[in-house]
């Protein structure tokens, strides 16, 4: 599987969790962390579906969602 085919996820952390403090835990599960969004309490990361399942099991994680694509809305 090429890198571009590996799913990208939005990891939303539980309220009050400092995003930078859980990066190590996510990486330990095999997630390749791409972006840390401190103000939102979210992390963008890449990994297999199995990795995503492991990340979902962490107490600090509220949700893990596969990244979507959007487009400009001119008609």
């Amino acid at each position: 599987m090429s890198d571009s085919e590996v799913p990208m996820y939005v990891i939303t952390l539980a309220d009050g969790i400092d995003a930078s403090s859980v990066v190590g835990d996510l990486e330990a599960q095999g997630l390749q962390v791409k972006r840390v969004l401190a103000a939102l309490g979210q992390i963008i990361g890449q990994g297999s579906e199995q990795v995503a399942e492991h990340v979902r099991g962490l107490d600090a994680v509220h949700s893990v969602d596969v990244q979507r694509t959007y487009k400009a809305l001119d008609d």
Partner: protein
Amino acid sequence: MFTHDSPRRTATEVPDRFVLIFDSPDAQVPGIAAQAREEQVPQLLTEQGYSISEYFPTLGIAVVTSKTDQLEDFRQRCAGHQLPPQVVPELLYRALPETGAAQDSYTDTDKFTWGLQAVRADLSSFTGKGINVAVLDTGFDSAHPDFAGRTVNAQSFIDGEDATDTHGHGTHCIGTSCGPRSPEQGPGYGIASEANIFAGKVLGADGSGSDSAILAGINWALENKCQVISMSLGADVQTVHPPYVTAGRRSLELGSLIIAAAGNNAQRSAGNPGFVGAPANSPYIMAVAAVDSALAVADFSAQANANEGGEVDIAGPGVEVYSSWPGSQRYNTISGTSMATPHVAGLAALLAQSSGLRAQELWDKLVQEARDLSLPAQDVGAGLAQASAGSEG
């Protein structure tokens, strides 16, 4: 300490006049006791040499004439009595000029686009000055002559692309929300013409982008204390995408209002009303529908969907909208809920300036002041967004 950093500072302030609020702005914290409002506060005011003729004990609010140093001394005395007041400058408001009955249709003139007229931005002397507006889109043409001298912060969240807009959509949306009302050529097309512009490139040159870039753009806007975040983008999915529930809620908590396009997936002329897509279907993101110059729902404008947050909240001008465009073309006229959204974002900036309101309160006020179009709420929400009722000067 007393500070001039109040969000109201950019409105018309009455010299040496201040409003003192002896209460907590936090609704979770009980207000001060009635005895303190009725006895201690007026005594403190009198001891400081302030008149109590404009003290309202039921509200715990006083309006005083004072020099800043005297006010700071008073604030410290009050703090010593566990009654620290919130201090804001007194503002001067007046009604917009009476223009008679609202029109039912509009056309571009030499002075203003039809959209600016329909939302009454042409009558408002508020300009969004001091308000940070983020437009998360395809970037911005920072060399556009209509924006010379403006404060523009641009950043790209698209790998391999800088913040330059090679698509056009972003420059058009920034033009509507924050462009000039009196450009050197052509009609005025921008609403918040003195707002600080934050152009976040979250859609690439092909007009598409992913959660990664969009959420990074929102995060950047929050870090830069943008009070208004405009997103003319979407995906045609009915289900709420959880990251935008959190992003919308946290933005409101941090004082920012996200305004997003409802979607263009309708084809009403063929009997298809469409549905509000993501991310506008987040319950914490304001969804904007589009109307045409006759104030009818645009053929493409998506209808509310049944999910919580899938409502249409408000409408803006979104058909044949003239605004800025990159490069030598400079201007373009296009349609979409994308075009309605920056109208509402610009109006939010005017209202944020004039009222000092932020986040959910700003949302509520925008909805409250919308013009009833006598159209179904599932199509246009509260109606057509309008410029702030107050006007300085």
